[in-house]
């Protein structure tokens, strides 16, 4: 089953994503959606995932604002209208 989700692209990655701040993509899981994203914009791939296909350490991926590391990671199921956000890890304090 395939669902349409909105993916928010961080400022830093927009040059590698045709300048888009968000794109509509389809998939059954967050991993499908990220896979489709790097399929459309191959320049994003090494920024987002490591050789093993896992989300890189300094990258946080959120489904409806929830960090997917605490859900089912890239296996997390998506439903129509969900929002996936990709953000760099930042300091605070």
């Amino acid at each position: 089953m395939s669902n349409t989700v909105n993916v928010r692209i961080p400022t830093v990655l927009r040059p590698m994503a045709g300048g888009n701040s968000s794109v509509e993509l389809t998939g059954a899981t967050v991993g499908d959606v990220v896979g489709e994203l790097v399929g459309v914009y191959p320049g994003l791939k090494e920024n987002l995932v490591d050789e093993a296909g896992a989300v890189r350490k300094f990258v946080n991926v959120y489904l409806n604002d929830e960090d997917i590391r605490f859900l089912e990671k890239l296996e997390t199921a998506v439903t129509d209208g969900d929002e996936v956000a990709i953000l760099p890890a930042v300091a605070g304090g």
Partner: protein
Amino acid sequence: MPVVASVLDLIGNTPVVDVSHLSPNPRVRILAKLESQNPAGSVKDRIAMSMVEAAEADGTLQPGATLLEPSSGNTGIALAMICRLRGYHLKIVLPQNVTAERRQMLEAYGAEIIPSPAEEGSNGAVRLAQKLADEHPDWVFLYQYGNEANPTAHLTGTGPEILRDVPEITHFVAGLGTSGTLMGVGAYMAEHAPHVKMYAVEPPSGEHVEGLRSLDDGYVPPVFEKWGGIDALHGKRIVRPADSIVWTRRLVNEAGIFAGISSGAAMAGAAKLAERLEEGVIVFIVCDGGWKYLSTGAYTEDLETVIDSIEDVIYF
């Protein structure tokens, strides 16, 4: 209350206020721990004191020493208060896009401000401080992001206080900055109340404030990795500026708690969590008061205008 010899004796032992009337779930209580009651106004008083005392104890800090620290505000302000009283010189690497009040408080306590580029945000301040520390080995670099005394202050202070005052706690919510609060309180709960679940909230700063050149400029504090990191948490979510402001206003309007914007974010995270729980008792951290954010218009200006303007300001 006993008379104390110094304001530094007033750090910690902060009160907890029941704000359950703001909970979206009548079966979930929400309690606010007011770290804003610390003498320099934020939760960071605890870690600043803890780091200075540890460095004095191991001889790193000698009388008259100069300290250097990257801070978006609160840690710097807390260190400035302590350094003034202890006779140390303090240099704070401060991103240029913090509120004027944060800068003024640092100046009030006599700290020297080294500005770092607004477009590089907190990560840029950390980078510049690391470079300056390398160039000036005589300056003491406490480095809150990697200093064991940071989470230790919460392991030995904040955590025990919470369990003493709220033994029925089931969930804890706090902002994720250096991760010191969550890692330290989490380590204490893991030992003494392992059923308590730990939740982090964070701002979506990466989108607006942080002009990172690549995601490799991202930053994960060493404290986070050393103290359990992802495995020590049960959830983490973004709270967007609109929700942060709405909840900051509800705290002041409906509970009389005049808190900073990141405390509104923590309250928003607590409310979201409450919706999903069957029942429970959530404690969240009010990490500072609202005083340092008045200039943003956060409390009274038109909501849309405020949301636009705080997207350019570091408020965590």
